[in-house]
């Protein structure tokens, strides 16, 4: 009796599960069009995640057959996974190094700029004003763990009108491989020789001080939960969290807050090489915000699947043209117009069996 009952139950559970699964499969959108269905998987930069996520949703409204799954795993993971060909495309905000490019299993990887972003220096100290001035050298000293109090004379020197609190500074940084970290440490290496020799630049560093958080979101969480903290975030994350961000002294000696204009200004004077791997930190220009950078899509020049490759190239082409309209609402700067035509050429060079995929 018992075993019959058990069997019956097992069959019922299995049948129910199969029905549930089948039901959900039918619900999947994109079944109405006659187009071939394509699923793409990408992962990487959390810096570009809010923009890419919205672009994907928007693109899907027009092309329901194409589903793009983008997971915000951090630039380090994006580079690793695209190199190991476990995903269809990666995204990073720190360009791949020569060694990384050589290690890629599927041949030549192209960097396609998706957007421009600023890395904001944010803090959580209720007694501080919204636009504290932080000198680059002071910034390096804070992240080196040499300045530990908010009322340190070096901070006070640039903020004479502010009564600084006598609280301890807690540094918040990324714990995972991160392009935001790359941009930030690239900047600190340019302006501080001590940072350059002791810590250097990279997607993950051995930090002299502070608490780690996973992803931009994780760092935002650490900052929000820790009074007296300072950290670096992609501008959109700082704005979303209502976190104040500091004005930084740029190369020309002006105090500049991160914004779309100051980020575009940083890109305006940059000379961008053909492979698009360029650093625009500490850029010249009176209004240029000094901690800014590109986020790139990483894609193999030689695609191995025609349908996937075509969908990917078309999406990227849309993202650098129409998709840019979504950028400013999310606090990303639009790509410079002269760059977009060069990117188009790059996309046209992506091939399947020698044939260009972009029509």
């Amino acid at each position, binding site marked *: 009796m*018992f075993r019959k009952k058990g069997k019956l*139950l097992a069959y019922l559970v299995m049948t129910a*599960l199969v029905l549930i699964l089948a039901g*959900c499969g039918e619900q*999947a959108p994109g079944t109405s069009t006659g187009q071939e269905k394509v699923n793409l*998987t990408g992962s990487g930069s959390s810096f570009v995640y*809010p923009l890419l996520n919205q672009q994907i949703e928007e693109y899907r409204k027009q092309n329901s057959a194409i589903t793009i799954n983008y*997971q915000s*795993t951090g630039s380090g993971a994006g580079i690793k996974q695209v190199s190991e060909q476990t995903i269809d495309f990666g995204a990073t905000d720190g360009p791949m190094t020569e060694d990384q490019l050589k290690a890629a299993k599927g041949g030549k990887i192209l960097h396609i700029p998706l957007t421009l972003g600023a890395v904001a220096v944010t803090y959580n100290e209720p007694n501080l004003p919204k636009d504290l001035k932080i000198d680059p050298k002071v910034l390096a000293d804070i992240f080196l763990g040499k300045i530990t109090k908010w009322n340190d004379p070096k901070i006070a020197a640039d903020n004479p009108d502010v009564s600084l609190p006598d609280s301890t500074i807690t540094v918040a940084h990324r714990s995972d491989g991160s392009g935001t970290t790359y941009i930030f440490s690239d900047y600190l290496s340019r302006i501080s020789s001590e940072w350059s020799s002791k810590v250097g630049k990279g997607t993950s560093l051995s930090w002299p001080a502070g608490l780690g958080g996973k992803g931009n979101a994780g760092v935002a969480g650490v900052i929000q939960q820790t009074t007296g903290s300072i950290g670096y975030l992609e501008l959109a994350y700082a704005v979303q*969290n209502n976190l104040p961000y500091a004005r930084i002294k740029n190369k020309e000696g002006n105090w500049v807050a991160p914004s779309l204009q100051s980020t575009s200004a940083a890109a305006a004077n940059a000379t961008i090489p053909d492979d698009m791997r360029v650093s625009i930190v500490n850029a010249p220009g009176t209004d240029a915000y000094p901690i800014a950078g590109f986020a790139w899509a990483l894609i193999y020049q030689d695609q191995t699947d025609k349908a996937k490759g075509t969908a990917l190239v078309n999406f990227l082409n849309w993202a650098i043209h129409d998709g840019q309209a979504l950028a400013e609402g999310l606090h990303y700067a639009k790509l410079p117009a002269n760059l977009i035509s060069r990117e188009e050429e790059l996309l046209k060079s992506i091939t399947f069996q020698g044939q260009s995929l972009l029509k």
Partner: protein
Amino acid sequence: MNDIFRKYQNWLMLIVFIIATIIALIPLFGVLGYVLKNGLSALNIQFFINLPKAMGLPGGGMANAIVGTLIMVLIASLIGIPIGILAAIYLTEYDRHSWLSTVVRFATDVLTGIPSIIVGIVIYTAVVLKMGNFSALAGGLALAIIMIPLIIRSTEEMLKLVSHSIREAGYALGISKGKTILKIVLPTAAKGIITGAMLAVARVAGETAPLLFTALGNQYWARSLNEPIASLPVQIFQYATSPYKEWHQLAWAGSLVLILMVIILNLVARFAFRSRSI
């Protein structure tokens, strides 16, 4: 007089026991209450039927994550439960004391203690890299590997509890060893074995770490088992660490659903199989 003192002593100790029991229950009900309080407000029909929405947009759900978790737990159970139970039968019924069973028992104990993230890395290297993509299969396999030692251990303990005289009674009637195991030993221990299997299922249903490298995650429906797939724990992890209030709410609701799934699993196991006992 002495009698009254004894009565007081009795009452006093009883109160101490009751207090200790209540304290032991506080964490359980604390967690349940907290998740209920925060999760219930975000739980609505949209949560169960909608896909996640892009950042900042309201009305997103976790339908794909709920189904994804069910699928991967099902895959893990289909692989893990038969292997675990069969291995345990071998260890208790056929080979209690040889070097092989000693090695298997030792390996099982070690495997039980291995952090689940390491299972994830191993599957990433052995399966994801070989297959060239993240998938529900890889995720299910990682969960199965975590399940197997748990099931071997619990099944073995249950089979050991079956009195040897029951087996001997079977042999005395001329029933073969295989039949004795199938018809007498296993049904006797069934309730315990199933409870053990259910506990293993409940344990892996909440695993996050091994899925990060194997199932990856997906904001849409996975169309086949060979594609990246969403799961509740990973989704909760991503949402809980995000700065967005809507996503925090969804993470609480997801936690509530996950806890309810585990509780229902336990209740089903107990209710459906309560008629048999050792």
